[in-house]
């Protein structure tokens, strides 16, 4: 049966392939776009593909959202890691030439626990979270080395532990069913894609940067037109520029202290003939030759006609690198040659002394500069998304691992040398023991980098802070939003709008709404719903295919041919491959091969017509998204395919394999004509969007009818949706997080979007559907304040819980003393102090205890230090040490409950106790709420139900919202949500407010009318206070309201008297320290301006740190009461009041040999 199905699919695939073949034949014949379309076909009614959006959930099952993180990490573990080891496989010794150690393989095991005596070594991520462990797996290498004269092979030597990304291929959650996930206490809806390091969940944010190894032409900061390339190889990263100064071209590089005239540089690379240089740069085009002539003349004027002469010229200017002390200085020309070969445009390989490829590349750069000088439009747009690459967790960890592995090997070598240096070894030297004692380097390096977020790699001059962030678990959406976030490398202080602006090329790739406000606006972006980020593909097969399709190798052609009128230069990953004389055909054939699965799906190809270049890319970090292929004005995906998809006969990858859908990266997308709807397909259309609403990201996808809102409102909601309290995960009650907000009765929104279903927001919602009346009520609703119905709050509306974690370590100390937990202390009469009343004999308050402010939940005692404790005990080690109580007490004004107590051991084998304390809060005055349209407001008043207005049907509002919120905000989407959810509530079904679609207002209004409501959504309402009708019809409906995390209970603060800082005796600062409210600079100025000197004195001194000092009227120094130590007299001591801080200043000045004197005068 199964085999039959398989056959069916294969058969179908065969058919499609055949079809594709036929099409390709047509294409090969040059039936170019728009020329050969059947006229009859055009008149046919356009068949719409029903439910083609179903491709989206199918896509999300294999790619998208957080899959790029996981894919990238998998790529690192499975491919990149092996490559890194392969590149650094040999460790040799300077001392013993016979010694070598060779890594023959590397692999990562399954996550394991580190506890010494554990029988079951498997560990779950949740255990790591709870016990503050690192979720990591051992990295094992196979080695081959010499021991004495024999060769030893060892397999599976552990060299460190690699933190494992959750849900990656090496995670225990990979492929687990929902039941298995539940057994591991993991939420099946949790996206994964983060690490657990020392118990905290850490995300490596996607980093955006300029693409490597590509020529970018732009005016530099001095205003010169220049072409720059950031070369990146495994060895180094360097920037090379070709720029035009005063009409002449120069080569510029950090390693060369001066700008080198281009012709001289070319000569140094062996291209001595002016003609050759001119041809490579300008071809035979007189226009470019004219532009180039000043450069050539300068070259001639330099009188450096041979390669050696040019090298000698460059040599002294080159900053030679890595010269070891003791080694004789090389001649200058060798320095120059070295720099030119290995540093200048380092990614272009130089074989021996064959610099031709590099010459052609530099010439190409020069040509691009000339092009841009002659036509300003031909400069590159730095903000164009096609010029950007995204760096993912896998790549970043790969860099780190490579660095650590190299360090590991060099340390190993140093140690090996150290041992082998000893003249006569007692035993044959076995490197295995050395290998074992370096185990911590890699582990610690990885863990430290991930937990601090500091990526500092000297080799790549990379010193980035803030690469990782703690995964925000405020709500499910905030966690998901974090996984799709992209942070930019641009410094935020620069006042340029370019990098922040919304780029047209972001369409469908990055969410246009989801970006923070303020300083990071536009720099932090979010992926759209249907994007994928590529990983590296092998170059070699692509190169072979390109040559097979008629690309002429660049090594075999001259400059004249290179720039011939009919030739397009072919680039692969930024390297010149050759030329093609039939670019359109080449590209078409290439795409046919890719669509048929002969080339990787993520390889992109496009023609740059302006510069006559064909670009092929297979590098990592390109943003791409799938689109339906259209040819001849017909979509390749048909309703039949969608039916098969729904029936489970086809998966998304089958659509790729059958050539129905393909991935387009930004550059290739730019070369396509993509129709948004079937109706818009024209004969020249190449692709069809799968669904337009995918241009929004996961967070902005929650907004119903966002296409009717003013755009900033969607941005505001994207920021606020992350602060909404709701359900976090299915395992939320098993988690012990520092701070956790949960809603008691969350509801899924009445007006959903397709995105909501796709990202499972309906299963882990954050908000409630409230009955909302839009009317003015009571005057406590101005400035967006909301009026809440008390009865609704009584019944549980907006109720939420706050869980806080408190940790305590019960330590063992090296001197054999240890912390202990004890029962409550007692008074003489045996009574337990009030604040200790809930502490059990084990020193802990049990779960369920209700704690009031100040009550103790953990009674820990620590041994008193040696100097005072043992001294009292007579210094005997045998006497029991004395202990000091360090109780932990509840420090919040509202009572809380002990939710959970966990006792475990940490990684360092110390006892770890975690308390989870819970508070349940009903909304109160000042708590913040928001709808899904960026309309936030605080609760202004809570009104009795009977005072609320009501409709004819007896419907009372939960929330009354002031209508002034609408005119200036223009959130029409919210109005539509009102109507749609009202209709949905009446009809008993959920409605959709999907972007660019959703339930039609006409249908919603019809439902309202059919059920006896006004189509406007406005109803006749009676005032609950007067009992008379309200003079206006009141717009009302159910609307999804989010409770935001900002609550009065967490913020309210006042103080009359309280703690003071020790040093200055001034009141402490901040709510957490019960601080005073500062009379600040500006307030001070007000009082001065007003002349209220006594008030000023009171505020700044008497209410703060007044201090009485006795000053000597003779010498002006501060003395004792009635005695001046300076004058040795008590004659003229005067008591005065000054701020303590002032007294402190005087004393500090005195300590610096500055003598301040106080001069006394009568007033």
């Amino acid at each position, binding site marked *: 049966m199964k085999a039959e199905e398989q056959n069916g699919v294969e058969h179908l695939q065969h058919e499609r392939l055949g079809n594709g073949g036929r099409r390709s034949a047509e294409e090969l014949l040059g039936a170019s776009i728009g020329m050969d379309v059947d006229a009859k076909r055009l008149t046919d009614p356009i068949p719409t593909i029903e439910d083609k959006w179903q491709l989206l959930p199918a896509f999300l099952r294999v790619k998208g959202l957080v899959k790029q993180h996981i894919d990238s990490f998998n790529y690192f573990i499975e491919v990149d890691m092996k490559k890194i080891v392969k590149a650094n496989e040999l460790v040799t010794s300077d001392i013993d030439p016979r010694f070598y150690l060779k890594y023959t393989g590397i692999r990562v095991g399954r996550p394991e626990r580190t506890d010494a005596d554990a029988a079951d070594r498997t560990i779950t991520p949740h255990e790591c979270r709870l016990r503050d462990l690192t979720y990591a797996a051992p990295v094992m290498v196979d080695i081959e080395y010499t021991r004495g004269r024999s060769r030893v092979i060892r397999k599976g030597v552990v060299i460190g532990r690699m933190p494992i990304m959750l849900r990656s291929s090496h995670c225990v959650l990979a492929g687990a069913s929902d039941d298995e996930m539940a057994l591991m206490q993991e939420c099946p809806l949790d996206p994964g894609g983060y690490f657990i390091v020392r118990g905290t969940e850490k995300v490596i944010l996607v980093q955006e940067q300029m693409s490597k190894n590509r020529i970018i032409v732009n005016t530099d900061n001095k205003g010169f037109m220049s072409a720059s390339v950031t070369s990146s190889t495994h060895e180094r990263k360097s920037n090379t520029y070709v720029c035009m100064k005063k009409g002449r071209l120069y080569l510029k590089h950090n390693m060369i202290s001066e700008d080198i005239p281009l012709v001289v540089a070319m000569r140094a690379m062996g291209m001595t003939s002016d003609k050759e240089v001119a041809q490579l740069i300008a071809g035979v085009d007189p226009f470019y030759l004219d532009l180039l002539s000043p450069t050539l003349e300068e070259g001639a004027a330099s009188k450096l006609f041979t390669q050696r002469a040019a090298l000698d010229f460059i040599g002294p200017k080159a900053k030679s690198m890595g010269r070891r002390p003791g080694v004789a200085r090389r001649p200058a020309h060798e320095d120059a040659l070295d720099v030119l070969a290995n540093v200048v445009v380092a990614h272009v390989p130089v074989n021996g002394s064959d610099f031709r490829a590099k010459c052609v590349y530099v010439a190409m750069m020069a040509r691009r500069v000339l092009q841009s000088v002659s036509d300003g439009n031909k400069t590159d747009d730095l903000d164009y998304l096609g010029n950007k690459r995204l760096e993912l967790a896998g790549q970043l960890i790969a860099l780190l691992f490579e660095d650590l592995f190299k360090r590991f090997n060099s340390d190993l070598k140093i140690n090996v040398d150290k041992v082998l240096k000893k003249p006569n070894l007692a035993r044959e030297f076995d490197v295995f023991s050395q290998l074992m004692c370096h185990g911590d380097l890699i582990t610690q390096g990885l863990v430290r980098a991930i937990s601090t977020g500091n990526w500092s790699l000297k080799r790549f001059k990379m010193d980035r802070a803030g690469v990782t962030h703690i995964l925000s678990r405020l709500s499910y959406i905030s966690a998901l939003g974090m996984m799709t976030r992209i942070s930019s490398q641009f410094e935020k202080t620069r006042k340029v709008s370019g990098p922040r602006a919304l780029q047209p090329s972001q369409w469908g790739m990055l969410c246009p709404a989801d970006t923070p406000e303020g300083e990071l606006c536009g720099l932090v972006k979010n992926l759209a719903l249907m994007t994928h980020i590529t990983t590296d593909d092998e170059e070699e097969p692509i190169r072979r295919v390109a040559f097979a399709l008629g690309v002429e190798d660049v090594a075999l052609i001259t400059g004249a041919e290179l720039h011939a009128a009919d030739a397009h230069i072919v680039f692969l990953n930024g390297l010149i491959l050759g030329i093609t004389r039939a670019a359109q055909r080449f590209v078409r054939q290439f795409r046919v091969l890719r669509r048929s699965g002969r080339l990787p799906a993520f390889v992109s190809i496009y023609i740059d017509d302006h510069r006559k270049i064909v670009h092929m890319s297979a590098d990592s970090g390109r943003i791409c998204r799938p689109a339906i292929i259209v040819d001849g004005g017909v979509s390749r995906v048909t309703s039949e395919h969608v039916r098969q998809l729904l029936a489970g006969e086809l998966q998304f990858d089958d659509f790729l394999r059958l050539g129905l859908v393909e991935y387009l990266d930004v550059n290739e997308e730019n070369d396509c004509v993509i129709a948004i709807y079937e109706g818009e397909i024209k004969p020249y259309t190449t692709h069809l969007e799968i669904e337009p609403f995918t241009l929004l990201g996961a967070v902005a996808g929650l907004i119903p009818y966002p296409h009717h809102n003013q755009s900033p409102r969607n941005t505001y909601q994207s920021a606020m949706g992350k602060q909404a309290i709701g359900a976090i995960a299915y395992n939320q009650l098993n988690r012990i997080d520092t701070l956790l907000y949960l809603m008691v009765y969350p509801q899924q929104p009445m007006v959903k979007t397709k995105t909501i279903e796709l990202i499972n927001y309906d299963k882990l919602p954050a908000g409630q559907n409230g009955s909302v009346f839009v009317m003015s009520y009571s005057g406590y609703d101005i400035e967006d304040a909301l009026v809440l119905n008390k009865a609704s709050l*009584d019944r549980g509306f907006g109720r939420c819980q706050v869980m806080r974690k408190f940790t305590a370590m019960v330590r063992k100390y090296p001197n054999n003393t240890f912390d202990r937990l004890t029962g409550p202390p007692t008074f003489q009469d045996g009574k337990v102090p009030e604040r200790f009343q809930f502490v059990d004999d084990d020193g802990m308050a049990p779960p369920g205890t209700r704690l009031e402010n100040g009550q103790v939940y953990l009674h820990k005692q620590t041994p008193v230090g040696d100097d005072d404790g043992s001294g009292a005990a007579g210094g005997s080690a045998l006497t029991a040490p004395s202990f000091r109580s360090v109780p932990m007490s509840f420090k919040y004004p509202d009572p809380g*409950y002990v939710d959970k107590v966990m006792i475990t051991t940490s990684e360092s084998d110390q006892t770890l106790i975690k308390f989870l304390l819970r508070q*349940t809060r009903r909304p109160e005055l000042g708590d913040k709420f928001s709808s899904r349209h960026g309309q936030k407001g605080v609760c202004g008043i809570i009104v009795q*139900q009977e005072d609320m207005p009501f409709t004819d049907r007896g419907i009372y509002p939960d929330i009354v919202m002031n209508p002034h919120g609408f005119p200036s905000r223009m959130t029409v989407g919210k109005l539509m949500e009102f109507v749609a959810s009202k209709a949905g509530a009446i009809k008993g079904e959920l409605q959709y407010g999907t972007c660019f679609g959703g339930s039609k207002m006409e249908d919603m209004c019809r439902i309202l*009318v059919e059920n*006896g409501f006004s189509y406007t959504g406005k109803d006749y309402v009676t005032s609950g206070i*007067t009992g*008379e009708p309200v*003079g206006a*019809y009141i717009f009302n409906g159910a609307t999804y309201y989010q409770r935001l995390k900002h609550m009065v209970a967490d913020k309210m603060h006042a103080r009359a008297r309280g703690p003071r800082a020790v040093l200055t005796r001034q009141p402490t600062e901040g709510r957490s320290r019960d601080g005073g409210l500062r009379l600040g600079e500006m307030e001070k100025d007000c009082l001065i301006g007003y002349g209220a000197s006594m008030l000023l004195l009171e505020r700044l001194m008497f209410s703060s740190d007044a201090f009485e000092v006795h000053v000597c009227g003779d010498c002006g120094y501060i003395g004792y009461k009635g005695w001046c130590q300076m004058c040795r007299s008590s004659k003229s001591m005067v008591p005065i009041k000054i701020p303590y801080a002032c007294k402190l200043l005087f004393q500090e000045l005195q300590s610096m040999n500055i003598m301040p004197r106080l001069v006394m005068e009568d007033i």
Partner: protein
Amino acid sequence: MALEDRNRVVVLEDRVENVSGADFPMGVDGQDVAFNLEGFKDTFDIRIVRITPTDIEFDLVGVDASIANALRRILIAEIPTMAIEKVYMINNTGVVQDEVLAHRLGLLPISADPNEFQWKRPDSVPTDQNTIVLKLDVACGVNRAAAPGETDPRKKYVNSSVYSSQLVWDPKGDQEQRFAARPIRPVHDDILITKLRPGQAVTCELHCEKGVGKDHAKFSPVATASYRLLPEIQILEDITGDDAELFRSCFPPGVVEIVEAKGVRKARVANPRKDTVSREVLRHKQFEGKVRLTRVRDHFIFSVESTGIIPPEELVTKALDVLMEKCDIAKAALARAVKSSEEDE
């Protein structure tokens, strides 16, 4: 204002007109119409339209909005009932936290006659006269009788869901005799309180106290209580033919009927009471000037949905009792005020 409009609220397309009555109840602006008990007796009327064990719909005709509103407000907020006020949690190992469970329990309607109980002041001790004790003691276990491979938790486990029926009344003092006729129990048996899984248990003692809806919604004896004014549809000009059909479709079924007279189909208002005032008819151009929607200002169609603790008809009389009590207080206060002002003079 036209004379006939004096008693009407006019429903226009974009607003409601003639919203307020006079400055004093039952009065007419600019006219001195003293309250006349005989006249009031003439016009006043209460008609019960529909009554079920939980709902009542009745017409209150001939009173001012303030009186009707007072009745509604009292129904919601001021009729006392018994509800769970204190939960003594002895054991709770379920996933629902103590305070959430207590909140859920508090909202259960408890069938007990509040008249039989006294108010409990915060400082007074619980007695059989002011407190009802209920007990909940449920533990979940595996159902051995369940078929192997059973996945439905209701069959697989015992007590996987805790329902209100599992609350047990613990009579104190003479409560057993006093309530022999109507034992105290939750109104509904099928309210889900919490869910449990094997090994989890809930044991608690619940104390019910007397309270009113303005303190907490759980004491409110009504699910909702509201009223609307009697709608009135005046056809000013004959509406015939297809327009009549359209006219009929603008109202809920039964409001407008079509009568055929001399071969002409004509719309006629049959039962305006059923109208929901959707104003749909005012949208159509062809009815402009032909129809006028109004509502009778002193005809209140009351709808009271009881939570089941107190039968709806009793609710209304109780509400009136409370209203009268309030009037007595007001009367006494008024008398004192008059007296003191007389003394001042």
